[in-house]
Each structure stands twice: as C-alpha cells, then as structure tokens.
C-alpha cells in the first residue's frame, strides 16, 4: 500500500466535507435537485472516505495520526483505531436514515440539518482537542435543539433537551478549561485537573443520558423526529469525548470513569426494565437505545481487552440494530401514524416485510446467536466478569429485560386481529436496501466475527496503552 498518513487525513477531511458540500449544493440548487439523491451522494462519499481511512489504519502499525500541536493535551486532528471504527459506523447509520426517511422529511430544511449534523459528528470523531470538542458539542446541541423545536409538537421536547444540554455544555466548557489549566495527562491531576475531570464527567453523564440525567433520552425519541433522535444518539459522541478526555490520565483509570461506568450499568438495567412497560414504539426504542448505549460505557472503563472489545462491539452492534428498529418504526409510522403498543395493533398483514425486518433487528439487538450483538454480549460479559462480578450480573439482567421488551413490542405491533379492508403497504425498494444492508453487517459480522474482533482488539490495545503511556515524559507538544 502506498498510502501515507496524509492520504488518511485527506480521507477524513473528505468524510467531513462531503456533507457540507451536499448542504451547499442543496442551498444553491433549491428544488432543482432531488434532496434525497444529494444526501445519498454526500453520505456515500463520506462512507467511502471513512472506509478509506479505516483501511489505512488497518494496514498501519497502529500509530495514531496527530495533526496540530497538542495544545492543552489534545490534538486538533486525532485519527486512531477508534476513529477508524466509528467513522464508517456513523456513515452507515446516516446513510440508512437518508435512505429510509419518508418523503416529508426531505420537504423542508430537514435534509440540510441532517447533513450538517453528520458533518459535525464526523468532525467530532476526528479530534481530541478539548476546545474543539466543546465547540462541536455546542454546535451540535444548538442545531439539534433548533431542529426539535421546528418539529410539530416538539417544543416541550426541545425545552427538555435544551435545558439539560445547556447544563452539559456549561460543565464541558468549565471542565475542559480546568483540564487545560492543570492537565492530568502529564503527572496526575491536581485540584483543578480533578475538578475539571469531574465536570467533564458530569457533562458526559448528561449528554450520554446516564442516571440520574437520563430523562431527555426517551423524551427525544417521543417528541423529535426519529431521524433527529437516531442521528443524535447513535454515534454516542459523549462516550467518544470521555474516551478522549478521561482516558489516559497519568494516575491510571480516573475515578470519574469508574463512577460513569457504574452509572452506566444502572442505566442499562433500568432502561431495559422500563422498556418492558412502554406504551408506544418510539418510547420503546428510546428506552432500549438508552439502555444499550449505556452498556457501551459499562465496558469502556474496563481494564481488560475483552471488556473493551465488548464495549466497542456493543457500540456498533446496538447502534446498527437500534437504528434498524427505529427506522422500521419510522417506516410504519409514515404509513399509518403513531404506533401504540398498549394493545395489539395487527400490522402484520399490512406490512409483512417490515414485520420480518423488525424481528430480525430485534434479534440482532438482543444478543441472538449468529448476530454481532451475541459476540458483543459474550465479550462484554466475559470481560466484565473478569473485572467486576456485579457488572456481569447487571449486564445479564439488562439482556433479560431487553429481550422481553423487544419481543413484547414486536408482538404488540404486528400481532392481533386484522380488519379485512385494512390498507396494505408494500415495502419500498430503498427501505429494503437499507434494512438488508444493515442486516448483512449485523449477521455477517456475527457469523464471521474473527477479523472484526481482531481489529477491535487492536483498538482496545491502543486505548489501554493510552492509559499507561501517559506516565511517559514526552512533552505534550511533541508527537510520537
């Protein structure tokens, strides 16, 4: 391979810029080009660029690419295994959303906001600079709040989201400023550094929707469009921020990370348990997303590679599976309005293909053998048992409740008496393509997990190494 680090940086830049170019094209050619085509082209370009960056990293010797001086303990451009894993993942999620989104979602400025949000997420995943992360958080939160506010009936949700995220941004800004003043990456944190770490942890807890700051999570799924909810939650930007800012302290795994992990475990079990009694599909997806995304954090604080690999695998598997469930729910909603699961809805005859996809995504989300989530659960349970027995028990409880919630949702949506003159909606080609692609990834990586798990092991090793190398005396401004 003749690719150089500059090729990788160029690929990441293309990944970030492609959605922005899409926004510009849409603005310049208002109503002359099909917004969906432009969005698909932009995100596909991002996906190809992300895959290029990932391929480069896989062929490299695991050395991160760091561009820009490490001002205040972070690099403006930081591309490593985690970036290589997450960029294609986010691009796939965004592409699926763009493919499945009903036509009305492209009628307004929605598509431009979606592309802008994708660009901000890609940029976030390619930086480790505290100030850059804070600014990108702020941009993303303001854009999301505006988008939710413009949704019909979304004002209350926008208030919930906006208020909680305002606190998160304040904590993040002050916390990163304190971390910059007293970087804990060199020789352990002083008072300012410790306070900064705790404030960043608080910001992460809020943005991540961990107990006791989780309430916005199901509210977002209930009050915003499903595209917004999925775009905001599936990339797990808060988890990424925690990895960049809280991992790698000179005095080992910081207490903040341990607290976050325990809160995450509780959130995972609590969210899955509450998912069992939800009244509508959106709330169900919201609770499951809250639960599953928390599981990622439970593993990221681990000290053994197995647990970290499990966390990263859960990051991808739960994200793709829940995106699938959310999009199937959206497809059903676009055909027949809000879907209650308090009673049997009898939608099987209406949309048998969507029933099949919902079930398969459900199985892929709940750790069914042959899916990526089975591998992920196996790794995270084996790893967490090595680390903490209570973590393994809570993970088992989470999978138990989540499975019941998913199957209850499926039976409620698709089971039940069907009226003879009920409408019949066949699945659209673009929907089938998106769902099939997601399933191919979930089942393909579940049936042949070796290479993927190996690459996760490399990412985990580099994350663990970053926890230990901090004691070295390399000045912050100098790159390895």
């Amino acid at each position, binding site marked *: 391979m003749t690719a150089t680090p500059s090729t990788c940086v160029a690929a990441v830049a293309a990944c970030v810029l492609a959605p922005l170019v899409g926004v510009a094209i849409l603005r310049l050619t208002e109503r002359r080009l099909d917004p969906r085509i432009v969005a698909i082209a932009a995100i596909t370009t991002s996906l190809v660029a992300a895959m290029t960056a990932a391929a480069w990293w896989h062929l490299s010797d695991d050395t991160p690419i760091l561009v820009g001086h490490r001002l205040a303990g972070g690099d403006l451009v930081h591309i490593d295994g985690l970036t290589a894993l997450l960029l294609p993942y986010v691009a796939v999620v965004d592409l699926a959303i763009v493919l499945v989104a009903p036509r009305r979602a492209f009628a307004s400025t929605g598509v431009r906001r979606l592309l802008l949000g994708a660009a901000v997420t890609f940029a976030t995943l390619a930086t480790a600079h505290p100030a850059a992360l804070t600014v990108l958080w702020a941009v993303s939160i303001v854009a999301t709040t505006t988008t939710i506010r413009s949704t019909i009936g979304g004002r*209350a*949700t926008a*208030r*919930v989201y906006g*208020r*909680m995220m305002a606190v998160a941004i304040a904590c993040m800004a002050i916390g990163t400023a304190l971390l910059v003043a007293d970087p804990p990456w060199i020789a352990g944190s002083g008072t300012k550094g410790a306070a900064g770490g705790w404030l960043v942890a608080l910001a992460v807890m809020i943005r991540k929707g961990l107990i006791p700051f989780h*309430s*916005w999570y*199901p509210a977002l799924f209930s009050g915003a469009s499903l595209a917004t909810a999925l775009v905001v939650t599936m990339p797990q930007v808060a988890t990424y921020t925690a990895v960049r800012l809280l991992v790698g302290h000179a005095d080992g795994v910081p207490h903040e990370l341990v607290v976050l992990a325990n809160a995450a475990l509780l959130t995972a079990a*609590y969210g899955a*348990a*509450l998912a*069992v*009694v*939800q009244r509508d599909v959106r709330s169900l997806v919201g609770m499951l997303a809250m639960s599953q995304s928390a599981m990622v954090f439970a593993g990221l604080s681990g000290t*053994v*590679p*197995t647990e970290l*690999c499990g966390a990263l695998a859960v990051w991808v598997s739960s994200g793709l599976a829940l995106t699938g469930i959310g999009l199937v729910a959206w497809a059903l909603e676009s055909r027949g309005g809000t879907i209650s*699961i*308090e*009673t*049997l809805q*009898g939608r*099987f*005859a209406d949309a048998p293909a969507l029933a*099949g996809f919902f079930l*398969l995504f459900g*199985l892929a989300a709940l750790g*069914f*053998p*042959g899916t990526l989530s089975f*591998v992920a659960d*196996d*790794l995270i*349970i*084996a790893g967490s*048992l090595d680390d903490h027995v209570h973590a393994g028990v809570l993970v*088992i409880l989470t*999978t*138990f409740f989540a*499975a*019941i919630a998913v*199957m*209850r949702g499926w*039976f*409620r949506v*698709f*089971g*039940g*008496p*069907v009226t003879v003159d009920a409408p019949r909606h066949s699945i659209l080609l673009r929907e*089938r393509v998106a769902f*099939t692609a997601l*399933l191919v990834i979930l089942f393909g990586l579940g049936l042949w*997990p*070796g290479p993927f*798990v190996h690459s*996760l092991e490399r990412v*985990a090793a580099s994350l663990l190494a970053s926890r230990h190398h901090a004691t070295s005396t390399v000045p912050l401004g100098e790159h390895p």
Partner: protein
Amino acid sequence: MTLHGPMPDPVSALVAWQLVAPAAALAAIGLPALVGRPLSERATTRVVSLAFSSCFVAALGVLVALANSGFAAQVVHLGRLFAVGHHTASIDLVADGLSVPYVCFSTGLCSLVNAFAGKYLHREPGFTRFFILLALFGTGMNLMVLAGSIDVLFAGWEFLGISSALLIGFFHERRNAVDAALRAFVTYRICDVGLFGASVVIHRATGTGDFATLFSGDWPHATCLVAGPTAVAITLLFAFAALGKSAQVPFSGWLPRAMEGPTPSSAIFYGALSIHAGAYVLLRCESLLDAAPLTAWLLVAVGIGTALHAAVVGSVQTDLKSMLAYASMTQAGIILAEIGLGFRLLPLIHVVSHAILRSLQILRSPSAMHDRHELAAALGGHPGQSSWSVVRLLPRNLSRHLYHLALERGFEETVVSRFVVRPLLAALMAADRAERRWVAVLGGTAADTSTRDPNGGLS
C-alpha cells in the same frame, strides 16, 4: 467424557453436517423470503426435507461408527470464531452415547413432521414462515444436542426458544396465540437466566466453557471434575433453566396455551423435542448431578409434584390438545424425577418413547375428533364408556375440592401473578409514571400518567 482428539474426517464431516444442512436450508428459504421472492411450497418442503433427511442418514452413519468404537466420546472441532486475550469462542461438537442417538431421533422426527406439515399447511399464508422456523429449530436442536461446551449449548437453546415462541404466535391474527407466544417467551427468558448463570459459573470455575473441563469419562459413566459446591451451583442453575423449557411447576402455565400454534409445531415442540430439552441438558451433566444430591432431590420433588399437578389438571381439560399438553407435562415431570433418582438410560428411553407417542397423538388430534364423531354417528351413540377414575373412590367433598383445584390449574398462575408479576410490573410502571412527570416538569407540560393495565399487558 473421554476426548480422543479429532475424529476421522468422514465422521467429522457427518457430525458437522448436522449443523450445516439445517442452517443451509434456513438460508435457502429465508434469504429469498427476505428479498421478497419466497420459494414455492414444493421447493420449500423439498429443501427442508432434504436437509433433515440427510441429517438423519448422516447421524445414523455416525451412530454406526460410534457403536464400532464402543461409544467412546469424540470431539469435533469446527473452528474458532474469535479470540481476545485468554477468552476464546470456538464451535466444538461432541459425538457420544447420548448426543448421537438423540440427534438421530430428533432429525428423524423433524423429517416426518416436515412431510406432514407440507400437506397440512398447504396454502396457509405463513407457509414459508413455518418452514423457516422449523429449519431454525432444527439448527438449534442439533447445536444444543451436539454441543461440546456450554456456549454452543446456550446458542442452540436460544434458537429453540425464539423459534418456539414465534411458532406459538404463528396465527398472529389471533389474540390468544399472540398472548400465549409472549407468555412462553417470557417464561423461557426467565429460565434462560439459569443457563446464562450456569455459563458464568462454569467459566469462572474452569476458565473455559468446555464440558471436558467439567466431567471426564464416557456417558453415562462420566466423573465430575469440579468441586461439590460448584457442581451444586451449576446443576441448580441448569435445573432452573430446565424447569422453564420442560414446563415444570411453577413455570408450567405456558404449555397448554402453546397449543395455539399449528399442529405440526405443537407435535414437535411440546410433544417431542423442545419439552425434553431441559431433560437433555440434565442428562448431559449427569455426573455433576451425582456430586449434587441437593439438586437431584429437588428434581425428584419438582418432577413428581409437576406430574401429579398435570395429571389432576389434565383430567378436567375439555379440549384434546390441552389434555395432550398436560399429559406431556406429566411425562416430562416423571422424566426429571427419574434423572433426579440417578437413572440415566431409563430417562433417555423414556424421552424417546414418549416423544414418538405424543407427537403421533398430537398430529392425529385434528382428525381424531372428526373420526370419533363419524363413528358415533355410525353406531348411533358414543363408542365406549367413559373411563373409570380413581377420583371416584375419594370422599365426595374431597373430590369436589380436587375438581375445583384442577379447574383453577392448581392456582399456580394466580400465585405467580399475584406475588411476582404484578408487584414487579407495578414497580416498573410507577417508575415510568415518575419519569413522565419529571419530563413534563422539565418541558413545562402536563404529564400523561393515565392508569393502565396493571399487568402491563403481560398478563
């Protein structure tokens, strides 16, 4: 379990075929359905028939090879899925005196039910769905029976659970079928925690999930390799898992309702294979039971209790399939008691003979009633007298109470619902209401905290 290393290639291939064939059938009929181009009915039944028939013949071949070697256990390593640090996931199958006869019997039965279902479900809207689930079940069954480690066994066990629940809810337009499917799935899931827990204990105790680290020697004379308390913990968790799958008290409520599914699936799941999955797991770890008398006596108590319960309740059922369900439950209870009492070959023979008889009865049940009515019409009255019952010997007052108890299904479900399900769901719904109020406060709106079904729709 004696491990003699890799088997000769032809026999290894025949063992591997037990997984490959049903999985290939699953893919062959599932993928076209996924892309909206399902196979024709004839092609579907032929593909599944070919898979199960070839599995049956291959299993017979392995049985002959195994008999020639004196039924010494042999391990087939199908490959490693992944490895991280010291944690490895691989697919190891074991061919021994328990697994190979069992797989012969299960694949043979699947072949026969496939042939029956091809006619029985002709032009049924869910025809392809049924055969997809049958292939999934077959894959899971073979995976579970041939498993050489707890991880592989767990994977097969999960396949059985989901295919069973989906087949109970096969007639999705019927409210009762959907409720029964969800009830069965929840029961399975509760008891799956036992198998999950056993897997955790085994991994912590031995550092791996391989059965070879738990016991050595050939079935049924294996020797336990783990300490007494560990054996007790593992067997208790296995027994907990088995209670759900084998519909034992207090987890028996789902079985009579499971008959909402199509007759062929009722026959193979609840008359033959799925209901004995728990017994199979206990037979697999029989040497651990020898080291865990507490679990053995618990199995005897629960088994006999369930057999009595099912015999009494079954005697007042008014439809044929419910009667057969309770009859299956009775026999499953007796089989568990036999295992607890230390028998090994007897429960295996009992499983096979009961499964064959019961599946025949269930498959015959739709036409049996019709035949009986025709016979009654021809004879001008009911053929034969009503059967004599020991209940007639009991005092009138006692028999009346017994009748009431039987009608209420031993109050088993009432107790479980009142003391377990309702309190748990009430707590969850209270938490959900509190969440909604808090979100409403944050959003400045009124919360929707209307009262709902106290069972959360899980009743």
